[in-house]
């Protein structure tokens, strides 16, 4: 593990259910992501992609194996530590998951407000700036209901990046978008991430965006079966 290693997972296995219904979802997964890299994790439905994402994202407890995230061991970590680590991550979901009652600016502010102590004026300014970077400065006061699907996902990207996270975890962010919007969102993610040195792990089975990846990991039946470096 080098100082630039953001994630180091070794021998990661995971099960769901209990007793006879217990089913293994991951088998001895090893992976390492370096600072600033843009990695795509792909594979068929049920291959375990989402499980990997939720374990790395501190949303599930690590059952077996080790995961070091930003130098912290997740196996056996206390809930409060996991919550603190999550504040250093950016999440982008398949459904944009913007808050319907908040404007685009306010949704982006939520990505900053989680870090206590950021003054209101600073948060406002950073949110407006982030919306400008994704080309939505003129939609700052719009509620999600008044934005297109692509615009909503771009706001979600701004929300994920505004707090300068060390790692962005994106789950099928282009699944519900047309070709142009999908390319737009991924390009934004890559460009803004590269400018900030943010590591990105993007789960998809959208073949249209593979050419943007520095590295492609293919997962099948809970095992990484292929690693393709493109950097």
């Amino acid at each position, binding site marked *: 593990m080098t100082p630039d290693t953001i994630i180091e997972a070794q021998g990661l296995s995971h099960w769901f259910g209990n007793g006879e219904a217990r089913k293994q979802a991951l088998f001895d997964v090893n992976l390492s992501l370096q600072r600033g890299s843009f990695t795509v994790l792909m594979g068929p439905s049920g291959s375990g992609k*989402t499980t990997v*994402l*939720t374990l790395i*994202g501190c*949303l*599930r407890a690590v059952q077996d194996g080790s995961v070091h995230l930003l130098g912290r061991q997740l196996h056996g970590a206390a809930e409060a530590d996991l*919550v*603190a*680590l*999550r*504040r*250093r*991550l950016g*999440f982008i*979901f*398949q*459904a944009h*998951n913007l*808050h*319907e*009652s*908040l404007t685009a600016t*306010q949704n982006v*502010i*939520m*990505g900053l*407000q*989680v870090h206590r102590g950021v003054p*209101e004026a600073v948060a406002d300014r950073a949110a407006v700036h982030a919306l400008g970077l994704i080309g939505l400065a003129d939609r700052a006061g719009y509620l999600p209901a008044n934005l297109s699907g692509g615009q909503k996902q771009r706001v979600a990207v701004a929300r994920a990046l505004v707090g300068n996270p060390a790692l962005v975890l994106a*789950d099928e962010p282009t699944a519900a978008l047309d070709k142009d919007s999908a390319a737009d969102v991924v390009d934004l993610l890559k460009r803004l991430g590269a400018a900030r040195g943010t590591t990105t792990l993007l789960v998809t089975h959208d073949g249209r965006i593979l050419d943007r990846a520095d590295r492609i990991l293919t997962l099948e039946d809970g095992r990484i079966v292929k690693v393709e470096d493109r950097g």
Partner: protein
Amino acid sequence: MSRLLQALFGRLPIGWLQLTHNRNRFAAALAGVAFANVLVFVQLGIMNSMGAATLRPYALFQADIMISAGDANSLTDGGNVARQWLLQAMADPDVTDGMGLFLANVPWDRGEKDISLSTFGVDPVKPAFLNPQIAGDLAMLQVQDAAILDRLARGLSKEVAAAIRPQTPLSFESQGRTITAYATFAGGGGFGGDGYMMVSDQTFLSLFPARSSAAPDHILLRLRPGAEVAAVVARLRTLISDTSLRIRSYADAAQEDLRYQQTRRPTGIIFGFGVLIGVLVGLVIVYQVLSTDVADHLREYATFKAMGYGPRFFLGIVLEEALVLGVMGFIPGLIIGTAILTAMGKVTTLPLAMSGSMALSVFVGTVVFSVISGAIATRRLAAADPADLF
């Protein structure tokens, strides 16, 4: 409002923004809280008025000690007291004077409506036992069948009441006699009668021939200035051999009557339950609004959880919503409640009115039940699992 809440909570006022996002639902929620408030105000107003109406006749007299029959839970309840105990009480060195108090309801046919006057028979030469507003006119009661009438009695118009003077008295028939009112005082309708009337004990006995001058309903005593009431009460309890009698300070008698009316009489219990039901309705309404709101936003809450927001943040949102509903629902509730109590007070002449202490206590109660509802509603937040978002 948004800026104010943002300054107050030091974060985006998500609770406020959520509530106001759906304006129709927000208005319905506020109407629900206001309704609960009105319910509590009306019940509380009636309960308080019952208290005020109970204490009002006590304010017509001035005494230090009251002796009543053992079963006299209130001024109007219970048996009589033998006058001999008045004479016995006068043997105590601190007792300076005593008066038998007679009490019964006198019907008055007012044409379109019969009214009933709670009538006190008093000694017309003892003004010290009467409230100053009556004491000055007391001597007039020495005239047979003379009365001092409650000008606020139900069924008595202001104009008619205002015209009552010694020069222009008002006469009416009751109990087979012609009663003549020469003066008035401010009483008011209560739950047991439509108003009050003062007559002399002799006139009272003429109106109620079956009653005996030797058996008033209560005995009032006055003590020399500086005398310790509790000590005299204790002495009288040993001095008077009838141990079944209730010998209490006048203030205690009034408070015991009040407690009896509020806790043991059906009316008091019913109004008490009315207040409780109002509070429960408010709790249920606020809980329903908040828990629905939480359920509607579970996905957003799960997203915030994933982003690293902790339980205090979510509790803060729900409590913010509870406070907004409680405070904003209280304002229309207060306005409507005040209007209803004022209208009811005018119609019934009961002392029904909004008081500052009542408004404050209902406001505090509203905020408290809103916060309790909010705290209960936050249990649904546990269902917001960020891992389910993927």
